[in-house]
């Protein structure tokens, strides 16, 4: 008889969540840095 | 033009003489090594772990850490004295400069290791006897590896703000392959195993040394020249 398939779905969820957090987190960090730069550039132009 | 090898030896001699006069790098490293050995002694339960099992690892971790202390101090002292700048102005081939620094650093670290070894034998009750020549050989090989990469990295680290942190962060990954090999050879030497069991590791060490001494020699100019 084949051994039963283990029930380990919570690991799957944990891994997928963490990967999503890291990757989207990095995208957001890049985006925020870009926004900050754009604001200071247009800010410099106004002076 | 003077032979680059003689130049290197001259540079090394100058550094060694300077160090012998002030002794700062040597003293800090020796005290550090002794302290590390003491800490290791309290870090294990002697009833559970036999000294001989742990001995090679303890010895090599101590050597690795002491080497870093010595390397850091050596370059910092020199930086403070702006001695390097004078040398750089002269038309000294950078490879010779690297070789000179390497030899001087090897002398410092080698001295620390030679003094640490009897301390180690004393604290851990390990008798080296027949293993001694082999041990000296593997120590030389591994140390050349550490110090080659350590010399170029300490030249870089000294130009940064957090030199004492920068050197370990950069250097430790590079110390791992020679460390693994050195520990393997040392444990076999202490267990009196035949040379055939160590050959692969010794070849790895030799290859590492050849590759990294050459590379660091070639890259040294990129570090010290503007």
């Amino acid at each position, binding site marked *: 008889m*084949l*051994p039963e*398939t*283990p*029930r*380990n*779905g919570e*690991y*799957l969820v*944990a*891994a*997928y969540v*963490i*990967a*999503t957090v*890291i*990757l*989207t987190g*990095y*995208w957001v960090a*890049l*985006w925020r*840095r*870009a926004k900050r*730069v*754009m604001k200071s*550039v247009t800010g410099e*132009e106004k002076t | 033009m003077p032979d680059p090898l003689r130049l290197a030896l001259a540079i090394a001699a100058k550094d060694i003489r300077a160090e012998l006069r002030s002794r700062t790098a040597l003293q800090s490293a020796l005290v550090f090594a002794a302290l590390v050995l003491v800490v290791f002694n309290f870090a294990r339960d002697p009833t559970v772990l036999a000294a001989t099992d742990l001995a090679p690892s303890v010895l090599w971790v101590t050597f690795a850490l002491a080497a870093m202390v010595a390397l850091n101090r050596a370059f910092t002292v020199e930086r403070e004295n702006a001695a390097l700048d004078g040398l750089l102005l002269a038309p000294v081939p950078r490879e010779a400069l690297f070789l000179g620094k390497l030899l001087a650093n090897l002398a410092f670290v080698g001295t620390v290791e030679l003094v640490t070894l009897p301390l180690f034998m004393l604290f851990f009750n390990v008798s080296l006897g027949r293993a001694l020549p082999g041990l000296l050989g593997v120590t030389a090989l591994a140390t050349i590896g550490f110090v080659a*990469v350590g010399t*170029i*990295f300490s030249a*870089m680290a000294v*130009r*940064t*703000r*957090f030199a004492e942190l*920068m050197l370990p*962060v*950069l250097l*430790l*990954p*590079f110390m*791992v*392959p020679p460390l*693994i*090999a050195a520990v*393997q050879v040392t444990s076999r030497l202490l267990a009196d195993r035949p040379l055939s069991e160590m050959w*692969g*590791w010794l070849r*790895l060490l030799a*290859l*590492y040394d050849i*590759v*990294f001494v050459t*590379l*660091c020699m070639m*890259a040294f100019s*990129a*570090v010290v020249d*503007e």
Partner: protein
Amino acid sequence: MTVALAQAVGIVRRGLVLSAIGLLALGGVYLLALRYTPVEARQGLAQKIFYLHVPAAWSALLGFSLVGIASALYLWLKDPRLDRFAAASAEVGVVFSAVMLTTGPIWAKPIWGTWWTWDARLTLTLFVFFLFIGYLALRAAVHDPAERARFSAVVGILGMLLVPFVHLSVYLFRTLHPQPIVLKPSAPSLPPEMLTTLLVSTLVFTLLYLGFVTARYGLALVDEAREEARDAA
């Protein structure tokens, strides 16, 4: 806004858009992994972490190799674009390494019963991570751009050459000290759904890598363009 600055901003935008598309595509990969692929009988649901972990490792390794190659080329050609690219690739590589180093143990625990083992692959991935960190730490600690470029290039090249030695020593170590046999993460022959999903995921991760590196490269270029504009003013 100077022309150089406008161009740099354009690059950042392109990078952000590309990686945003990549993130959406990643959602598609999740769907594939969760619905389309079969559940592996021996490993259960946790096996599906494979579709994230392997492509992340591939991207991290790609990033790392490119840092090494760009470093070598920089020391030869002295083109600042190569240095900028190496820095971008290193930062993005760290991000993918983080994904790899978190999904790896999360996968290992239910399958191998332990969070970590010192097998050759895992040890190497840890090493690459430390080398990246060292590289980025050095860049942060050196202020003069030319000096920073030269120093990082040296570390990049030395790091790239260290990897085979680490691999060799860990391999030699393991053949002398046989560790408990570890389940191979994939069945000997992958069923087509698994293979397809893996390939799609790898493509998506590569897209993410390209997008992120472009954006990061652009941001560095923007900083430099602003410096120049300020100096010229």
